[in-house]
């Protein structure tokens, strides 16, 4: 079966919508296509993409990670609590510690889910409460400081290319290569597609699960560090919206919550759609209150159209459960 053809069927609608949204925004506002506006856009959409990557790798195995938001918060307050002196050593600390904190928290999730028969939904629901407590313990209110060198992560440029764009492309490329070119990547899809079959073909589900939840923690940690660089401060509640937004982005990006179907290439598109909808509604001068309704309706429409067996559901025909 052609894998490429299947990928195309998943991603084509996503990017067709992105293109349409993009053209529409450009048509409504002359400044939309300017380089500055797009640089700004990369900067804003990057944390959502990182959170979407975190969620997608887990969703592909048929799991879910509700602690993404709290892990982002912990990484953010950790980044803002590190010493505020611009030395190369500090910059190294700043780059390493928040993502590693995320990795550690993700590993705890992974251990609980891999070693015990607990549903991921409950484990990550419980751990998100624990991690939120941790974030509040580190920093009770938004504040702290981020060293100036570190803030370059969100505003700097290398050879004229904005660092957020590089970061986003590197993260997506790394996750895509991991999923499509490595054994663990194939195991992730196999496990999400059919756990029994995966076990029979020699895949160790515990290892795969431990791996994806750890990876989810790492991406969340990166998102948290990035957010604190963007805001110049830490915030123990900054991650909260990212729980549901990351799920929405993963699903709009073509990944099925049942697992086994989708990938990270859709995440960029999903995040852009999610973010640009806001942008467009603003451009159209729609009251912020109505934007909630528009967003909900667009989400439902997008998901209904991309549901794999919509026709069978509305008409007749056999369909699998679960």
């Amino acid at each position, binding site marked *: 079966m052609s894998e490429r053809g299947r990928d195309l069927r998943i991603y084509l609608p996503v990017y067709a919508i992105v293109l349409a949204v993009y053209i529409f925004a450009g048509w409504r506002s002359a400044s939309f296509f300017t380089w500055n506006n797009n640089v700004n856009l990369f900067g804003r959409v990057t944390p959502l993409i990182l959170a979407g990557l975190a969620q997608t790798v887990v969703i592909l195995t048929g799991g879910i990670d509700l602690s993404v938001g709290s892990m982002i918060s912990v990484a953010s307050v950790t980044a803002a609590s590190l010493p505020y002196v611009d030395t190369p050593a500090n910059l190294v600390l700043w780059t390493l510690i928040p993502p590693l904190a995320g990795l550690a928290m993700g590993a705890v999730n992974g251990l609980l889910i891999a070693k015990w028969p607990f549903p991921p939904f409950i484990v990550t629901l*419980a751990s998100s*409460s624990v991690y939120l407590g941790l974030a509040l*313990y580190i920093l009770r209110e938004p504040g702290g400081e981020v060293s100036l060198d570190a803030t370059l992560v969100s505003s700097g440029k290398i050879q004229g290319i904005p660092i957020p764009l590089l970061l986003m492309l590197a993260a997506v490329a790394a996750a895509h290569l991991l999923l499509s070119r490595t054994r663990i990547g194939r195991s992730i899809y196999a496990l999400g597609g059919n756990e029994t079959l995966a076990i029979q073909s020699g895949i160790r589900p515990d290892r795969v699960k431990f791996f994806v939840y750890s990876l989810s923690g790492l991406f969340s940690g990166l998102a948290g560090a990035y957010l604190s660089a963007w805001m110049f401060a830490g915030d123990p509640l900054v991650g909260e919206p990212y729980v549901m937004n990351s799920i929405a982005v993963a699903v709009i990006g073509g990944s099925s919550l049942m697992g086994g179907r989708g990938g990270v290439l859709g995440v960029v598109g999903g995040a852009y759609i999610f973010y640009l909808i806001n942008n467009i509604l603003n451009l159209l001068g729609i009251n912020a209150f109505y934007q909630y309704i528009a967003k909900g309706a667009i989400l439902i429409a997008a998901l209904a159209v991309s549901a794999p067996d919509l026709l069978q559901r509305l008409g007749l025909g056999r369909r699998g459960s679960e």
Partner: protein
Amino acid sequence: MMGLWRKIPEGWRSLLGLWAAILLLFGIGGMISPGFFSVSQAGAIFRSASFIGLVAMGQTLAILIGGIDLSVGPLVSLGSVFGCLMLAGRDENNLWAISAILLIGVAAGVLNGVGVSLLGISPMVMTLATGAIVTGAVLIYSQGAPTGNASPALRAVGVGFTWSIPNSVLIWLALGAILSLVLKFTTFGRGIYYLGANETAARFSGLRVNFIKTAVYALSGLTAALTGIIIAGYTSVAFVAAGRDYPMQSIAAAVIGGVAMTGGRGGYGGAAAGAVLLCLIESLLTNLNMQEPGRKIMNGLVIIMLMSFYYRKRLDAASKKKAAT
């Protein structure tokens, strides 16, 4: 003694265990701080449990059919905000305002049900989207700054007592008992369990799967909106964020009470005890002067601990298998 314990059916055993834990925690609370073991303290705990418990009624049904309802939070907010605005502190508005809000709750639930059953959208995302729409409705109707007050009659429901039991608790007990009976003794109730256990089999055996799903989400919308109205009576003024914690707390109550996330197993009695346990622990930790960070951490640890209690059989099986290989 142990023989007698084994004779009790599994479901009743975990229910008894939960209530024993609740009594134990009450006792511990009483020993630690003298004011804890009092009727007024128990009333306060049970009142907040009744709010979570009412929302957990619909949530339990949704989880039993293998779904989930994240729109209950915005619907609680809607009940609270619309309640105060529509009632405007007058009893003559009671009938139309409360029926209108309950109808909106049902309508939102039907939207969830149609999205999940006919459009095939996964429940988590569908109820999230509906929740966004409901939040929009709340903000538009209140212009972001809710005004108005609960009516005197609603105030009486929210803060009043009958035989020194808070009225909201009595309503909760009555509705909870009805729900338990419906789940046990009606075709609809059995259909819910059957659907949750195996959807394909349920479909092939002629169960009206789409109808049951839509009815379940409609009931969930109804109980969430009702909770919002009662909360409006308790606080008297409305908050846009009134429902913020309810999705996760109602799910936690159901899970602590032994309702399986995969669907088809558990009952409402457990979820109700779960709601009491959650509020009791929160109150106990507050009494111990534990700050919010510590409470959040304890909350998560308790859920994990109770989880291992329900999965201990499968834990045993897993460790035996490991020992054998």
